[in-house]
């Protein structure tokens, strides 16, 4: 052995830790980067849109209503003469407020339920799971209708409706992961230490089921965006004169037959692009976690 023995460089992955590796894996994922780019574009529009929108998205110009796309109004004007381009730009604000908050609520509630049912198993699992399955059988729209009647029309109602509708789906995913985790030695060790059930669930098991929760959350965010747009289209939650995309489609879809396609098309494309962006991010996250 020489005096100047070369010590082998430690493996890069081992040095970074699992989460850093996921991060760098994401940075190498074109799917994730494209999706992130789309989402960040709409987030920037939501935060700063009114600074670069060419017109006030709420300002009417009724005499110039339903003008087709032109150099003056790139996406044309709507039924009361508002600039459609400016409304599409600023219209991401409501949906990017309501959908993430609803998803967050679904994630928190779903994770707690999933931990609970997966950890206790048995009769508790049977009862709660059947209730959740029954709840999942009810369409979101029906739940929304009932909630609107009970609570009134508001963004908060939409957040609660979508959050509670998606919570059982997340709970089911978390439950599956917890059922596998609870059989591992570290859980048995915690129980031997007489840790409380809450401690075992939230301190021991939860960190180990974060990856599926993360994937499910990003997937649900895409669905939540679609659900918010659907409920806005149906007239629940977001109220005029908000430039919200679903609401704008709802207000103008009757004009398509008359050839005024621009009052609807660009809002629809905006919803589609955001959903695609979020789904690409979800695919990227899933891929990185699987690697």
């Amino acid at each position, binding site marked *: 052995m020489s005096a100047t023995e070369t010590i082998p460089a430690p493996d890069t992955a081992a040095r970074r830790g699992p989460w850093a590796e996921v991060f760098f894996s994401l940075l190498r994922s074109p799917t994730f980067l494209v999706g992130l780019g789309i989402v960040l574009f709409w987030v920037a529009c939501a935060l700063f849109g009114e600074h670069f929108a060419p017109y006030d998205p709420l300002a009417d110009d009724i005499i110039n209503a339903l003008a087709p796309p032109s150099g003056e109004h790139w996406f044309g004007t709507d039924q009361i003469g508002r600039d459609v381009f400016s409304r599409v730009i600023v219209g991401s604000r409501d949906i990017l407020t309501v959908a993430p908050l609803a998803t967050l609520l679904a994630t928190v509630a779903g994770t707690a339920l999933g931990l609970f049912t997966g950890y206790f198993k048995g009769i508790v699992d049977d009862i709660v799971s059947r209730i959740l399955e029954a709840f999942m059988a009810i369409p979101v729209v029906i739940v929304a209708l009932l909630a609107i009647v009970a609570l009134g029309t508001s963004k908060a109602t939409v957040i609660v409706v979508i959050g509670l509708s998606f919570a059982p789906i997340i709970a089911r995913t978390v439950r599956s992961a917890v059922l596998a985790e609870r059989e591992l030695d570290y859980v048995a060790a915690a129980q031997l230490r007489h840790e409380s059930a809450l401690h075992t669930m939230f301190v021991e098991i939860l960190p180990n089921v974060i990856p599926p929760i993360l994937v499910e959350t990003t997937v649900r965010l895409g669905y939540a965006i679609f659900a918010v747009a659907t409920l806005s289209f149906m007239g629940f939650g977001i109220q*005029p004169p908000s430039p919200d995309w679903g609401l704008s489609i709802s207000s103008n879809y009757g004009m398509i037959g008359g050839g005024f396609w621009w009052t609807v098309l660009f809002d629809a494309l905006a919803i589609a692009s955001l959903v695609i962006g979020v789904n690409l991010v979800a695919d990227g996250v899933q891929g990185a976690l699987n690697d």
Partner: protein
Amino acid sequence: MIKNYRLLDLIRRQRTPLENHLIDGLVDGRVSRREFIRHGSLLGLSLPLLGGITTAAGFGAMPSLARAQGAPGATIRVASSVPAAAIDPVTIADAGGLLVMQQVAEFLCVDGPDLVLQPALAESWKPNADGSVWTFTLRKGVKFHSGGEMKADDVVASIDRLADPANSSNALSVFNGILKTGASKKVDDYTVEFHLDAPNGNFPYMLSSDNYNAVIVPASYKGDYEKSFDGTGPFKIEKYTPKVGASFVRNEDYWGPKALPERTEFTFFTDVQPMILALQGGQVDIINQMPVLSGVALLNDPSVDIISLKSSAHQQLHMRCDDGPLKDARVRRAIALCLDRDKLVAGLMKGRSALGNDSPFAAVYPSTDTSIPQRKQDIAQAKQLMEAAGVAQGFKVTLTTERYLEIPEYAQLIQNWVKEIGVELELNILDQGGYYGDAVFGKSNWLDSVMGITDYGHRGVPNVYLAAPLKSEGTWNAAHFKNKDYDALATSYIAALDLEAQKADAGKIQKLLLEETPVIFGYFYDYLTATAKGVTGVQPTAMSQLFLEKASKA
């Protein structure tokens, strides 16, 4: 204008003092020819007689409404909204249902497109001296589709049925406080008297097509109208399929000229857009009612003709007079002064409406006092009023309304305009069920909201608009407006038989409502019917009825 006083004297000798007063008004120039014809029809003067008087008074002959008759035998296809409930003369309340019913059943008189009453099952009518009893003379030889002759017993039974509170009649909104059950009396087989609760100068309109429930069906009618569709009309039912459509065939025993079309077909649609596509695609010939915003593409379509009827239909913007910042009339006036009504008419309604002046007196009514100045947008004055009322800094208030026609867009325009005086409107736009609720105080967003916009359909006379939403005890008084002077003026107007007395009351009411402004009447929208090019002789009314007996296709 050369007046034929000899002929006028001859005519006057056979007329009542009330009718002569109207003739004098025409001769003296106090009443225009249009007003004379319309009010004369209300008093039961026949159209030929009215024509004779206008000629004698130097106005020339009445314009003929006659058109070249089209070819018979066509099948006319109509796109209509779906009847919302079972079709029954007593309970029907929606455009789709009343349209189907009106194809087979008829009224005593018809409120024509020019708001001139035309005889139908009644040949003539006249009031007593104070307008508390109206006598209708029925047409002879009219047969129901089921075979019997229409007589006074059928008229009495039909109208009694509508006036009976026990029947949950939709027509009670018209007859309440005017005509009780049992107050319709048979004089002989062809004469009926209506004894009113109080004098009423516009009563014939309440038995006309204006009151769409008031069709005459056999006295033996016991309900379940969809089984018989019995009536006296120019068409008989061929087939009715709920939610899908209906078809009718020509009634060969009709009392009047036989209908030109051999058949008519009605297809029900839940939305306007499919109707437009069906018209453009040649699947239907007529869209009975076309909202201006949804149908804007058809307005300039060379393959489509638009029949545009001036009407009194409007959107009422009510403001609570009993609570909050809107309690002060100056604030209500300030809000009204923010509206740019010219832009509403030209932009929102594409020119298919008339200016409103914050009273129910639309330009179409002959009693409207046109000398009252039109309210216009005046932001400076509005700000002064806000300052005088102590709310110069503005306030926040919720405007609740229904998702119907152009109302959401109208609400957003108002929201933008009142920002200029510091009023921040929060919109709460509900579906119609959510907005109207149980339609009683305490259980209705419509009647309980601080501010709201409500659609009001056309009426041939303003009586309903003057009473239900504005009188202190009005059942639709969403503004919670209580003003004894107004109540007295409205009562006086409703009772007046004489056009000039009506005009005098109308002017006072218009001034009072401009001062108080419990309700903003921004515009009165036209009733639009779209027909394919080459379809002629179609006669809609602003009450959603469609008379097709003279219709033909090129």
